């Protein structure tokens, strides 16, 4: 493991619908290295390829060419089955739209990622309650998620992302649907996680995010390519 | 209780229900088997060949005895006896030929 690098990409290129009329080149030739314990921001206007890079880093999808090493292991050719396994054990994802499952309670939503791993539900519930407590959501645990406010939904989503004790926490435009105060709250939560030793990667074009004092690594993107990498 | 347990219990309940029905079926069948001796006694004494299953028309009463032609038996213009008439195939007397061969001189 070269000097604490947790994810390294080499010349990462991703096309969508390759060979078809609606072909899109989402990222091209991206080479970045993210160290264990980094607080990294992917910065850039919408359409710059941040989200695609984020999902490549989070093992959501396979690159068209180039390679990704996660914890020293080349995952760029792995079938989806094994990609999912890696994602399930190392990544926690917070989506722009929160993506909670409607009609289920907060607690159930938080527990959901670990269902297929055969986790013991009683222990899992304890763990989920612990996470919700840390985020001040414990009293809401049996609420159906559709009745929550935006901030509460996001805290539920954070708890869900943390249920598998991920090494890496990834967030995509997390502040897009929040007001300034809630955005700052979110950044504080991320900072706490970072201080606990998690690697945090956030894609955003919100100044509250990328001007945050904890952000150690800022990757600026434009038109699918990396324009600038600054490490503080 | 977790939901899968509830579902398991529901399935178990249904299976138990079925098992109970299976037991009653065994009992009723064995009772019928005793009774069927009396029934076949009646069959033997009266030399009956058919069961009284659908007697809406004469030709449906004894499917093994009836003639192949059948319409208008009760009175001219009598409609076909649906459904018995339509769902009873004519008895297959063609099979009679096979095991019995009659040599003609």
């Amino acid at each position, binding site marked *: 493991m070269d000097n604490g690098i947790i994810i390294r990409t080499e010349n990462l290129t991703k096309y969508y619908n390759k*060979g078809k009329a609606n072909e899109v080149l989402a990222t091209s030739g991206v080479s970045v290295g993210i160290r264990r314990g980094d607080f990294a921001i992917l910065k850039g206007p919408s359409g710059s390829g941040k989200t695609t890079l984020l999902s490549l880093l989070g093992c959501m999808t*396979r690159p068209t060419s180039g390679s990704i090493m996660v914890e020293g292991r080349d995952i760029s050719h*792995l079938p989806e089955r094994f990609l999912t396994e890696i994602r399930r054990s190392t990544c926690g994802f917070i989506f722009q739209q929160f993506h909670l499952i409607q009609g289920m309670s907060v607690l159930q939503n938080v527990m959901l990622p670990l269902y297929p791993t055969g986790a013991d539900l009683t222990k899992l519930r304890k763990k989920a309650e612990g996470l919700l407590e840390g985020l001040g959501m414990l009293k809401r645990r049996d609420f159906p998620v559709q009745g929550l406010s935006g901030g509460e939904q996001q805290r539920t989503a954070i708890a869900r992302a943390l249920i598998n004790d991920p090494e890496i926490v990834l967030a995509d435009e997390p502040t897009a649907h929040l007001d300034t105060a809630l955005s700052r709250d979110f950044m504080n939560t991320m900072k706490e996680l970072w201080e606990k030793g998690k690697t945090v990667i956030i894609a955003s074009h919100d100044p509250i995010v990328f001007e945050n004092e904890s952000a150690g690594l800022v990757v600026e993107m434009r038109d699918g390519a990396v324009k600038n990498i600054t490490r503080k | 209780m977790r939901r899968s347990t509830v579902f398991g219990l529901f399935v178990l309940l249904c299976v138990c229900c079925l098992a109970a029905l299976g037991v009653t079926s065994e009992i009723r069948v064995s009772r019928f088997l005793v009774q069927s001796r009396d029934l076949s006694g009646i069959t033997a004494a009266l030399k009956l060949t058919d069961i009284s299953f659908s007697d809406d028309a004469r030709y449906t009463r004894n499917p093994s005895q009836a003639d192949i032609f059948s319409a208008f038996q009760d009175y001219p213009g009598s409609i076909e006896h649906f459904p018995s008439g339509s769902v009873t195939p004519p008895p297959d007397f063609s099979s009679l030929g096979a095991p019995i061969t009659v040599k003609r001189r």
Partner: protein
Amino acid sequence: MIMQPGVIALLLGSGITLVLLVYASFLGVKIWSNWDIGSNSETQLALERKTYLVSTLVKYGLFFEIVSVFLFIYTADDIHNLLVGAMCATGSLNANAFGFPALYVKIAVLFLAAAWIVLDTLDSRAEDYPLTRKKYKLLLFIVPLVVAGYVLQIKYFSGINPDVITSCCGVLFSEGGSGVGSSLASLPLHGTEIVFFSLFVAVSAAGLLAIKTGRRFFMIALACLSASFFFVSIAAIISFISLYFYQNPTHHCPFDMLQGGYYYAGYPMYASLFTGSFFGTMTGVIQPLRKVATLSALVPGTQRRWALISVTAFTIFVVIILIPIVLTPFTLEGY
């Protein structure tokens, strides 16, 4: 053709199996000819996703095939009233030349489909899916069998002529007759008993040694012995086990024990025999896979587990057949 609910159900059920498996093999050909695990193209991704569909289709196909084998035997048993001289399923199956071949083909499909599924499961645990091409080649062997089974079954039912005097089990399995069935029935009783029980001891010994040592020799031995034990057991069922079940020195029918009158003893008996033979044989079949790099770590453990399943299942089988032999006053002395 006999229009009976049983026949309709059978044709519907096995027709669905046929459609599923033909579709699966069609996809299999597609995957087989375009497969490139090293590629990251969207075509390859789509193919990888199709493998899930093929596995699912074959799994359901196997389940439906099991139902359809039972349905076939039951229906044959049910129509024996329509046939002159047929007294049980054996007689009905003998009504024309297609009955028994249809049953044999169905059982072969059962084994092959099960083998495909376990290979598929094993393959999907290795990161590079090393068996993909072999798997889909095997699938192409199964499909003609399924089609043949379906055609034979239709020919069987459409060819049933209620006039033909069929040989019932009494004739088929009576010692004086000719044909495979009766030659099985006329096997010397004590000889068959000795062969059967000594083969059981041999197969269990091979299985236990295979579990203990994990050595190649015992794996192969277990596979060969399991396969032969399957055929010897079928012969033994017809030759002497059935006699104890029915307590009748002339009734050799291998199907009647599936009925309520014999406490459905046939189900656990055949289930354990099939399971034991299948897993026993598969331990040897996957022996060469130890050489595949990504599978070499997985195979030995799997083999031991299967050997254990096989030995357990065979033991259950023997216990089931020993029950009537030990517990009933019926003896075959003098036969």
